[in-house]
């Protein structure tokens, strides 16, 4: 084996001890030093955000979004941008836009900009809060539109301002279509046969899956998912539009006029038994509301055993509130001897079940005045006509 080979150098290659005739080789030139400049090519206004993006090797859209957010959230973004316009040189320029912002005077210029910011910021923040009420929702809507279009079409948030505006508009259009589709599907699921919308979702899912092997139909994914979400909410809340829409109030005169079941699709359903001649013993009553309120008003001397389910909303029984989703309230007290007991079965999809007696009704009519001199038992979880037995349960 040749010695030169063991050293890793060929016989003709120079070593450190054997300089070439031209002298030592110059080291290869390194990458040029990074310099923050305003871009002339990738620019929306002055190229500041484009330059920041290239300097930090990040998509400039993040700096643009940040600058817009700072403008709307107090106006500081505007001043910072103006300061950067003055201090950061343009691409290919050797000096910044302000001649003094170089050399010894640069420090004075920066100090001047900082002082300007400190003095004007409180005024900008005051106006910014006013502007934020309108600006932030619009900025959020535009941002959501860009994001939605990105997810739907794959066109990311890059390019010039015109491209981004076009994508935001298309994305907002998709959002509007989805909202319309969502409510239409919800209406169809609540008003039509229970199986219809789920069957359509299954067919759509099958078509999308089959398309994966034949010809992808990705555009169908978002509508199918929107319809599925609407139908899922309707199913989870057990919303049913049987019974129509509106406000219904029933005041039966006697137990003969009292129906076993009252139902309403959307609206307020009130069954007022205060003037009803009720028999002693148990009286079954069923209230069913899709979206809205089911309210039962009973006389003070009537006990109520409650079995209520609300998909999303609130159950208030004799002044005690329970809110949230999937609420089930059950309370089966015994009535005092010779008293009537209403066996209430209430079901509301989205909204409220409210049960109260005359004392609470007076309380409501006195504008919820806590100083109203009602019965001291007001607020008790059950009517005064009930025995204390029984245990209320919330699920």
């Amino acid at each position, binding site marked *: 084996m040749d010695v030169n080979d063991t050293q890793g150098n060929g016989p003709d290659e120079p070593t450190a001890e054997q300089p070439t005739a031209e002298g030592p080789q110059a080291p290869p030139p390194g990458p040029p030093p990074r310099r923050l400049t305003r871009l002339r090519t990738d620019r929306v206004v002055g190229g500041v955000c484009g330059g920041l993006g290239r300097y930090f090797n990040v998509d400039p859209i993040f700096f643009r979004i940040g600058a817009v957010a700072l403008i709307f959230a107090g106006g500081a973004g505007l001043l910072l941008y103006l300061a950067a316009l003055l201090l950061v040189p343009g691409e290919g320029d050797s000096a910044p836009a302000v001649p003094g912002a170089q050399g010894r005077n640069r420090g004075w210029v920066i100090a001047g900009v900082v002082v300007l910011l400190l003095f004007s910021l409180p005024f900008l923040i005051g106006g910014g809060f006013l502007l934020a009420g309108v600006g932030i929702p619009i900025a959020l809507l535009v941002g959501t539109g860009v994001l939605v279009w990105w997810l739907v079409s794959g066109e990311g948030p890059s390019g010039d301002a015109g491209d981004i505006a076009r994508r935001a508009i298309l994305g907002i259009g998709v959002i509007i279509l989805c909202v319309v589709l969502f409510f239409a599907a919800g209406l169809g699921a609540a008003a039509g046969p229970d*199986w219809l919308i*789920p069957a359509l*979702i299954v067919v759509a899912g099958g078509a999308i*899956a089959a398309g994966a*092997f034949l010809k992808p139909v990705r555009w169908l994914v978002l509508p199918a998912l929107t319809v599925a979400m609407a139908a*899922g909410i309707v199913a989870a809340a057990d919303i049913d539009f049987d019974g129509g829409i509106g406000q219904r109030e029933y005041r039966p005169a006697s137990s003969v006029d009292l129906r076993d079941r009252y139902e309403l699709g959307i609206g307020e359903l009130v069954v007022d038994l205060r003037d009803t001649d009720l028999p002693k013993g148990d009286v079954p009553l069923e209230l069913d509301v899709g979206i809205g309120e089911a309210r039962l008003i009973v006389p003070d001397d009537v006990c109520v055993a409650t079995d209520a389910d609300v*998909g999303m909303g609130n159950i208030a029984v004799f002044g005690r509130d329970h809110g949230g*989703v*999937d609420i089930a309230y059950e309370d089966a007290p015994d009535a005092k001897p010779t008293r009537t007991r209403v066996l209430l079965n209430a079901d509301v999809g989205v909204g409220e079940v409210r049960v109260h007696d005359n004392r609470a009704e007076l309380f409501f009519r006195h504008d919820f005045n806590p100083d109203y001199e009602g019965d001291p038992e007001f607020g008790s979880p059950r009517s005064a006509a009930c025995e204390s037995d029984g245990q209320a349960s919330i699920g």
Partner: protein
Amino acid sequence: MRSGPDIPSLVAGLAVLAFGGVLMLDAFAVFDLSFAAFGPLACATAGAILVANGLGRRR
């Protein structure tokens, strides 16, 4: 002729199919869908679609 299935479409289709199947079972009273079950189901469906879509773009 495609070399293989479009994975994001396949995942999205199966996820929507499964969601529709659950709703069908609820419609035929096999079980009662509640918000406690609907929330995770909706998140899992949307999440599966987004993940498959994102991975498909990276490929």
